[in-house]
């Protein structure tokens, strides 16, 4: 602990009769939640300002009774007695103070919730059966939990616009909107693109974008995530799958060096959507739209499914493919180079390096992907694991040398792991000059088309492993779906190749790979996949790394 860190005083708060301690500055709703008392809410979001407009989080609040000389009155149990306020308060905008009491399920509180639920439902349309939010709708959930269970509203409902195309990726249904303003606040406070607003007033208040403008921010789909009802829905996901069928897998985004934490929603080996997963060290609760939507290729019918060896009848079996690859890789010692990818996991890069040394090749590199970045969650590095490639010594800066070698014929054997070689300065014609071109990949491209041995691999959503983001945080990938056809995990392919070229003993699990990796890499000392956990760990990496 640094000596300058100021200590936050702990305050005593009585939550449903039990005294607890929380740091000063805690919002009352958070104190309740931390005590295991769920407080239903709509407008409150931990990452946004508190407008206090939905009134769902009303609780009973009290302050310690004071004697005339400002000392707390103690009860029989020696604890301060609380003078309860007759009016309920919103717990989202109330900060805790010493001796505060809160009741989260008293008759008054339950009455308040019932009232608010009824108000929210009277003008809400009855299209739940076809609503995409079904299954994760807060209105439905709280209605079951806290509602009256019957309707006495016999008036005509307020009519508002439905199915409006308000942006390239979003559809708005205003009748479903409960005016919690989360989306407006997100666009103002986080995305910094003030295009959403309320028009008209009273019960006719309507969420809208300015005529002629569009909710086209690259963060627009986060509004869909935080919309507690089905007012904002994603065009990409609309009517694709009922959410209760989705299996959620915790993993990370691989579209750039940020490594935003995400959930993959899949069913029966098909990915249906990606949503952000909260990690305050990395991406808070948000991800960019173009990253979250960049998964359809994983489901593609074009995926490489079978190993292939040039001149042999396809498909070949894995043992044959590995043998052929090993034979070719060994053929030209001294004229062999390796292009790895900073999109591979640490485990894969670690094994790639081992393979290189087993082949006696010192000529290897990864393809850098510098990009503009957006100053928020899209980093200036288009690779998700440049830090890992650097840490493991794969990023050598020798890519041009490799390209020149292929061109001049100095390099006769090239192993390409998950990259398009033509992006690395090697022309398609030069690739043809190679004696051997061993390639791992997931989709057909110019490199796989020219492979002498093609080894179909797993996409990022199909494998486990770790990556280190641009800020030096090591995080885990997890398998959401299995690879198509015979395609295999890259680390297994690499392990088999190492064995086949006469290398090391067998490794049977990804955990073992990581164990060996950690043993050989000081920055990872003491870590295991389990210790990295769902949220990752900051590595103490030196500047040169």
């Amino acid at each position: 602990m640094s000596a300058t860190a100021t200590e936050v005083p702990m305050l005593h708060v009585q939550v449903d009769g039990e005294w607890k301690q929380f740091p000063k500055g805690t919002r009352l709703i958070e104190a309740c939640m931390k005590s295991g008392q769920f407080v239903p809410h709509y407008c409150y979001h931990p990452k946004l300002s508190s407008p206090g407009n939905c009134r769902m989080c009303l609780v009973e609040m009290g302050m310690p009774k004071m004697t005339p000389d400002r000392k707390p009155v103690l009860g029989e149990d020696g604890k301060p007695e609380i003078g309860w306020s007759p009016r309920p308060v919103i717990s989202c905008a109330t900060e805790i103070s010493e001796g505060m009491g809160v009741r989260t399920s008293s008759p008054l509180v339950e009455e308040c919730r019932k009232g608010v639920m009824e108000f929210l439902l009277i003008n809400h349309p009855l299209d739940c059966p076809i609503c995409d939010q079904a299954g994760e709708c807060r209105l439905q959930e709280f209605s079951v939990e806290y509602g009256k269970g019957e309707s006495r509203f016999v008036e005509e409902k307020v009519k508002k616009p439905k199915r409006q195309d308000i942006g390239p990726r979003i559809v708005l249904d205003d009748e479903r909107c409960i005016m919690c303003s989360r989306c407006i606040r997100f666009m103002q406070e986080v995305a910094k693109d003030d295009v959403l607003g309320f028009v008209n007033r009273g019960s006719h208040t309507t969420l809208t974008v300015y005529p002629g403008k569009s909710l086209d921010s690259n963060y627009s789909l986060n509004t869909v995530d935080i919309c507690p009802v089905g007012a904002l829905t994603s065009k990409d996901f609309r009517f694709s799958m009922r959410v209760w069928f989705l299996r959620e897998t915790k993993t990370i985004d691989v579209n750039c060096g940020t490594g935003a934490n995400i959930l993959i929603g899949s069913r029966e080996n098909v990915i249906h959507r990606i949503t952000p997963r909260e990690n305050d060290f990395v991406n808070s609760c948000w991800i960019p739209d173009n990253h979250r939507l960049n998964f359809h290729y994983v489901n593609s019918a074009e995926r490489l499914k079978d190993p292939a060896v040039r001149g042999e009848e396809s498909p070949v079996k894995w043992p044959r493919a590995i043998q052929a690859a090993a034979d070719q890789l060994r053929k030209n010692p001294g004229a062999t180079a390796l292009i790895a990818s900073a999109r591979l996991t640490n485990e894969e890069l670690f094994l790639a390096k081992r393979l290189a040394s087993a082949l006696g090749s010192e000529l290897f590199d990864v393809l850098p992907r510098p990009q503009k970045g957006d100053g928020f969650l899209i980093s200036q590095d288009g690779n998700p694991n440049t830090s890992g490639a650097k840490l493991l010594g794969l990023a050598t800066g020798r890519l041009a040398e490799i390209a020149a070698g292929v061109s001049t014929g100095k390099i006769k054997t090239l192993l390409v792991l998950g990259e398009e070689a033509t992006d690395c300065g090697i022309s398609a014609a030069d690739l043809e000059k190679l004696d051997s071109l061993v390639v791992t990949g997931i989709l057909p491209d110019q490199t796989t088309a020219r492979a002498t041995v093609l080894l179909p691999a797993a996409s990022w959503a199909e494998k486990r492993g770790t990556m280190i983001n641009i800020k030096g945080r090591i995080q885990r990938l997890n398998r959401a779906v299995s690879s198509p056809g015979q395609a295999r995990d890259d680390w297994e392919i690499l392990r088999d190749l190492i064995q086949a070229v006469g290398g090391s003993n067998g490794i049977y699990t990804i955990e073992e790979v990581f164990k060996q990796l950690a043993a050989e890499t000081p920055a990872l000392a003491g870590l295991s996949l389990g210790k990295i956990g769902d949220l990752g760990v900051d590595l103490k990496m030196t500047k040169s790394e």
Partner: protein
Amino acid sequence: MTAQPFVMPPPHPKERRIIFENISQPGYDPSIDTFIKHGGYESLKKALTMKPVEIIDAVKASNLRGRGGAGFPCGVKWSFIKHDDGKPHYIVVNGDESEPGTFKDRYILHYDPHQLIEGLVISAYATNTHLSYIYIRCEFPEAAGIVWNAIEEAKARGFVGKNILGSGFDCDIYVHQGAGAYICGEETSLLESLEGKRPYPRIKPPYFPAVLGLYMKPTIVNNVETICHVKHILRLGPEEYAKMGTPGDGGTRTMCVSGDVVKPGFYELPAGAVTLGELIFDICGGLKPGRKLKAVIPGGSSAKVLRAEEIFKVKVKGADGQMVDKEIKMLDVVMDAATLGSVGSMIGSAGVIVMDDTREMVWALNNLNQFYAHESCGQCTPCREGSLWMSKITTRMLDGGGQGADPKTLQNVADNIAGRTVCAFGEACAWPTQSFLAKFPEEFEAVAAEK
């Protein structure tokens, strides 16, 4: 740009005109010369010789309560502002007069704008404020012009602007016009409106204007009439001023009487000087011939309605100083903050709406329900949804579609609004329904059962 000629009737013997003293004078016009001829800006001169804290103490001692509706003690409000906190302070005068039944500020703004400006500069000096806004509802377009003009006149004479009367104190004043929203009368909504945002009331805590007001700086929001009283507290002295009223409610109050009386209008009376009966029968000439009193809304449309034959049990101070129970008839209710509070209503903005026996209570409530449904800002759930729901129920009842459960539903909807909203509008829209149902249940039952 002149307002229509306005002649105030001679005062009733019970009246004590302070705020409306000038306006009562024949030939009085809003020019600065006329104002000065009638002793204008003398209180400001006196104020500039005092320490700001002395002025605040005087206002405290005067027992002046806000005249906008909430009735908060004015001096206490001012003392929340720390004179030397190094922050800018603001005063915003609430001239959004929009509580149905209230029509006093209209006359001050149109006919005696310098009275307001003088009071405002004194208030600014007392609270170390250098920038003030007078928020005037847009439905007073002429008043806005008149007040602008008055500010220019006062500036030219050194009462407003830089180095006021050589004292070294600066204060700029600007007029800001509303655009037709009752909610802007709520002080934090008014500040949002003045900041150019949708006028959604702020949550309290933490946004108390005296702490986080206009531009998140300490701010005083006072009603037009309240600010005018400040001038007279200095002129008369706080003791003399306080003596006019009751112990907790000093000075005069302008009572606005409308509805079914012979002489509707506004009457400036010492606080607590008259009963409701005296106000209606002696001062306003009683009801129209052949009519009987049925109901009174005593403090603006949000105040709970009183029924003519009601008898209230209240606690009053007996001769020996002990509190004793007493029964009072509705007409004997004294028009001050404490008494109206004790009978379950409020003095509010002192807008008294009188209804005689020709009035149907479902109809009257529906009129108010439509008002609140139209004026709800829509920010928070209970008011946004509840105000329109109540209005739809009473409208349907009047259209012959009443259902037996309607009174009960109305009651419960109102109960689910009051006390659960961001701002006091929740109470404002629930109280009429709650009180009309409580006081006139038989009329609601009858209309609900009608086919």
